[in-house]
């Protein structure tokens, strides 16, 4: 199921201009309201200076007198402060699995994940959000933090093109590092195949309880979903695990394929159940799915984009 060397060399390979134009009109939607660092185009939990009224609260010493509601003072003879929703920027964290297991299938899972990451990052950039990219493998992470504005799209692309899948994922450790970083809370999208020998629970647990609006995007090659497809697994083989090097002798039979698919369904089901319990959106996507369809239909339907 391993594919040939990637063909992504420049920004256009990651995100063509036609899709770029379509993505200009959409934004990342968070199910939570987060505090931003800079004034942005997004409602913030912080009461601020926008025109959108939020609440009243009693005046305390030091409050800005411009926000005192004098009408209420006239009626009640008490000072109340009008509170407005602050519009702040959103932190969009895209965690990309760069372990060796991502290099598989046709179309290549890793290339597909990078193209999705590019598209998501672009949406974040054009909407003036703070976009951070985190690549994780072997328990280490590589960041590209606090990118903002359309002009940073080239930086994002260069960063993505630089990533090469290798080694194991070290998902738990990687997520721990992401979760504890002073990155600011926001929307986090994890792009991975979630085929971790050590399991996905602990890794997701490291970020699930830390205030992120979390999306788990499980990217799988069509041949991983159904090995009997063209280019899949046939005959008598020694299967070598790309991450661990573990060898498994198999003779592919319809019975084995059936059991494999049952196992995969069980794994996806377990991830979905885990995510549901922790308010994480889980989405399985085959690498043969057009990025445009994913962005404009699937992710919109699941509430990540609008």
């Amino acid at each position, binding site marked *: *199921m*391993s594919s040939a060397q990637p063909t992504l060399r420049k920004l256009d390979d990651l995100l063509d201009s036609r899709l770029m134009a379509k993505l200009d009109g959409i934004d990342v939607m968070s199910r939570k309201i987060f505090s931003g660092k800079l004034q942005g185009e997004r409602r913030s939990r912080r009461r601020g200076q926008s025109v959108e009224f939020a609440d009243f609260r009693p005046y305390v010493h030091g409050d800005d007198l411009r926000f005192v509601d004098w009408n209420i003072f006239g009626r009640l003879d008490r000072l109340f402060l009008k509170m407005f929703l602050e519009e702040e920027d959103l932190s969009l964290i895209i965690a990309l699995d760069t372990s*060796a*297991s*991502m*290099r*598989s*299938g046709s179309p290549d*899972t890793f290339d597909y994940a990078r193209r999705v990451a590019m598209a998501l990052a672009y949406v974040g950039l054009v909407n003036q959000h703070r976009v951070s990219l985190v690549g994780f493998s072997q328990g280490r992470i590589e960041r590209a933090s606090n990118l903002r504005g359309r002009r940073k799209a080239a930086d994002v692309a260069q960063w993505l093109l630089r990533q090469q899948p290798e080694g194991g994922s070290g998902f738990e450790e990687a997520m721990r590092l992401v979760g504890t970083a002073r990155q600011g809370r926001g929307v986090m999208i994890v792009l991975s*195949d979630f*085929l971790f*020998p050590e399991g996905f629970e602990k890794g997701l647990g490291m970020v699930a309880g830390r205030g992120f609006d979390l999306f788990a995007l499980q990217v799988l*090659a069509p041949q*991983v979903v159904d090995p009997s497809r063209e280019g899949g*697994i*046939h*005959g*008598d*083989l*020694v*299967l*070598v*695990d*790309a*991450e*661990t090097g*573990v*060898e*498994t*002798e*198999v*003779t592919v*039979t319809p*019975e*084995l394929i059936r*059991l*494999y698919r*049952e*196992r*995969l369904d069980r*794994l996806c089901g377990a991830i979905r159940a885990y995510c549901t319990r922790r308010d994480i959106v889980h989405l399985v996507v085959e690498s043969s799915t057009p990025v445009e369809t994913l962005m404009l239909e699937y992710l919109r339907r699941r509430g990540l984009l609008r």
Partner: protein
Amino acid sequence: MSAPTHILALTWVTPLAGAILGASILAPLVALWFLKLRRKRRVISSTLLWSRSLADLRANTPFQRIRFSWLLLLQILAIVLIAVALAQPEAEGLGASGGRHVLLIDRSASMNAMETAEEDGTTIDPPIARLALAKEAAKTRVRELLGGGWFSKRASEVMIVAFGSRAEIRSPFTDNISTLESAIDAITPTDEATVLSEALELSRAFTSNLNVADARGEKNELPVGELPTIELYSDGRVSDLATLALREGEGIVYHRVGAADRNLAVVAVSADRPPEQQNRIQVFAALVNPRTEAASVTVQMAIDGTVRAVTPEKITIPAAAERDGQWVPGRAQVVFRPVEQPNNASIEVAIVEDDALRDDDAALVVVPPAKKLSVLLVSNGDAFLLRTVLEALPVERFATMTLGEFEAATAQGKPSGYDVVVFDGVAPAALAPGSYLAVGAVPPIDGLTQFGSHEGVYPRIAREEHPLFRAASIDELFVSKLVAVQASKNFEVVAECAEGPMILTLDRSDLHLVYLAFDPLDSNWPFQRSFVNFVANAVEHLGRAGESLTGRALTPGEAISMRLPAGARNGEVETPDGRKFACTIDPDGQLTWGPVQLAGLHRIRFTPAIGEGTELRLVAVNIANADEARIAPRAELALGTQTVQGISVGDSRRGALWPWVLALGLLIVLLEWWSYQRQVRV
């Protein structure tokens, strides 16, 4: 030495070798198959799901099942086929191999039928005689039984018996193939009838346990051994089939030989010189058609090898039919116009059209030269009636005597030179060798006894085909007084009434008699024309009876017995195929030789007592057997309560199957190789 085994209607020559190969290779093959498997390495994103699925697969089955693989299946199939080929299967529906076998080879007349096609329609070119097919099949069988396989020789013994109307052992039990093949090759065809009983008895006699110890005068009992398998190579047309039955434990394999059924036959031929035309010969013949379709044939008559007459139109012989459960062949009679032939001659009547069996398409008869008879009438009275009739006959010499004169002449060694003596109401004290027509009084012959008389009788049954009744019907005969006689079985009753015999004949080599058990004057016969014809027929019949072989021709299997002049010597018999055999002649001139095996003209030469010249006698031998003419092979033999299904020798000639099995095995190997290459290429 491993004995061949009979499994699944196949004979396995070396089953042990095949079993050993199969057992020793199959198990290692299955093991090696796994070792041989070159799994292709393939890097995938994660083996996580695969290893768990494999664990599921193993967990779900209590035993690890050999997974299905076309390659493994093909390899097992190839090994099994090669092992089967090594066991040398031979397809045939025969009895078990090994043990003792008696091959009975039919060499009767019907086995001379020429086969032009096999049962499945395959043309045999050139045509081959049925006997040759049988011999070839028997030799093949001998090689099967004794030839052994690649790794073993079979423990069999074979005896060869050839039979027609008699059976001969051609080879006693032996396991020597060349001896047996030579014995089979030496079997020559005959025109005999098929009599199986003697062959069966012969084989039984030789297959019963021979107590060798007894032969040495000791009394050691040998245990009863295995009964032999009797294998019959024949077309199944066995004349004595109805009388045969297999003994308990006795087995017989019937190798059905041949397929042809197209045959017509001449089963009887007779010749006569009309009384008023003694220089001419008239020939009668009977034809049979054993098939179920009518046939039309042209028949020719040849005298001394020269064709003298041909039927102007085709003779139609009706089809054979079943009547009252009995098979009755279609019959037709042919009568040729009298032809001039004053001298002795051999006359052959033959069917012109070709058929499968030529030997029975012709029949022969030998007639002596034209000769006028001399007749003596012995009577104590006037004998007006008989004297008048006899005087009217075209005889050379006619004389009358009283009984006293006759007996006196006999006592003196006379009378001699009379061909027929007629006793009219008298009986001599004794009858010397000769030919006699006795009327009324009972002649003094053993086996003929008078016990009274009957009055007012009518004939009930008459053998009208008998020469005595030619143009002499006795349908309107009434006898007022009949001599009641009791006749032994040597006599033939040619006419009888409800009370007993009316006319009897006796044909012995030295004495021929026609006896009328009534005085014609006590009947209305003198007033009928048939009486004159009857007397003329009787004189003619008796007058020719003493001459050599004018009567019934011999059939193959019988012996030639002929009285030659006393003192004859240097006897020699020449058979129809040109072979000559010396034969001895008794001092009183009796020649006996035989049995004859071939139909046709046998020439007997001898030197008479006086002079040095050689004299010739001709003897006609005809198949004259409607059963032998029925050459269509019998599908099965009913032997008593047992029915033996015939096996076509064409089937058994297909022989060994192992080359085909081996070829199939190698084909499977090729298929496996191709399949493997294709799989590895993926």
